[in-house]
């Protein structure tokens, strides 16, 4: 089934979930490498890869949100405490927010820093703000802070999924697996 039902994720939602999971983990590593690499042609290439994947993730996040709104969302299992339901809602909201906010703040840095850039060396990315060194520095801080927040929320997300499976013994993790 391509579409979700009220108690199962469809192939569409699973595709977005796992493709973006892989891209986001890779993207965080690329970002750390790009920032810490000594100035060299390799560093510049790492930044092009990081920015290109950012644009890809932003595009996928937009499509994924549209797909989510066009589908029913599987319900949480019975017997979850109110705080658990609230934690699930807040953490998922934060994940979507960060999937959008990280690429957008990156785009602002690139525009403010006035660095020539083509997505995957092909398509020029139009600037969203005028060149401004102070703004670029400020958004570099914001971008780094958001990336750290993403790592924290991801750890909570993965921890919660494992808790559902191994401690609560419900089907929350299994129903997102490709065969589940």
């Amino acid at each position, binding site marked *: 089934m391509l579409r979700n039902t009220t108690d199962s994720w469809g192939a569409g939602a699973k595709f977005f979930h796992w493709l973006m999971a892989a891209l986001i983990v890779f993207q965080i590593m690329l970002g750390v490498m790009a920032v810490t690499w000594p*100035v*060299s*042609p390799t560093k*510049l*290439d790492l930044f*092009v890869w990081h920015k290109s994947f950012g644009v890809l993730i932003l595009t996928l996040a937009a499509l994924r949100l549209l797909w989510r709104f066009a589908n029913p969302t599987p319900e949480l299992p019975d017997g979850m405490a109110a705080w658990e339901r609230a934690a699930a809602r807040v953490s998922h909201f934060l994940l979507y927010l960060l999937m959008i906010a990280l690429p957008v703040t990156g785009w602002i840095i690139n525009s403010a*820093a*006035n*660095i*020539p*850039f*083509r997505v995957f*060396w092909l398509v*020029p990315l139009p600037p969203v703000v005028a*060149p401004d*060194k102070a703004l670029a520095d400020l958004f570099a801080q914001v971008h780094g802070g958001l990336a750290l927040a993403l790592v924290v929320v991801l750890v909570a997300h993965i921890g919660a999924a494992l808790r559902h499976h191994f401690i609560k013994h419900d089907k929350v993790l299994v129903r997102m697996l490709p065969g589940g």
Partner: protein
Amino acid sequence: MKKKTAWLGLCGLLLAGALPAAQPAEWKMDPAGSKLEFVATFEKTPAPGVFKEFDARLRFDPEQPAGGSLDVTVKVTSADMSIPDVNKEIRGKDWFDYAGFPQAEFRSTDLRRAQGNRYVARGTLSLKGAKQAVEVPFTWTGDAERATMEGELTLKRGAFGIGAGEWAATSVIGADVKVKFTVKLRKAG
């Protein structure tokens, strides 16, 4: 007495007739409106810059370009690529090496007309300690008092050692650098 006067008269005639032909007009650059730009490529994307300070001196008669000359000095340290991080990098030894080679020069060896108002100055460009023969094509528009020279040429950055070490590879920073100029001139004197 008569003979002496005749000689002086003859010399005067010769000087009056010969000097203007041998000395083409001198032109001085008007920095306002003059521009020296360069466009490198950065990850397959154009990366423009300017040299804010440069000066051109020209002896030139558009009808007889052969006797003229073009000398350009460029303050390399006035380069501006409008990205603070990049401006910091290009000062270094691997790039322009501001400390070692603060100035570049072009000295023409000959000027000729290509066609109509298009001319070519052939000469030597000294940049970052390297001397290379280059041809500078330009168009000439103007009148007897004011004129504009415009042109563009493409240089290989590698020929001048700009981008040393691992930057010599041209996949990230391209080999070709386009140089574009607009020089506003006023007749001197």
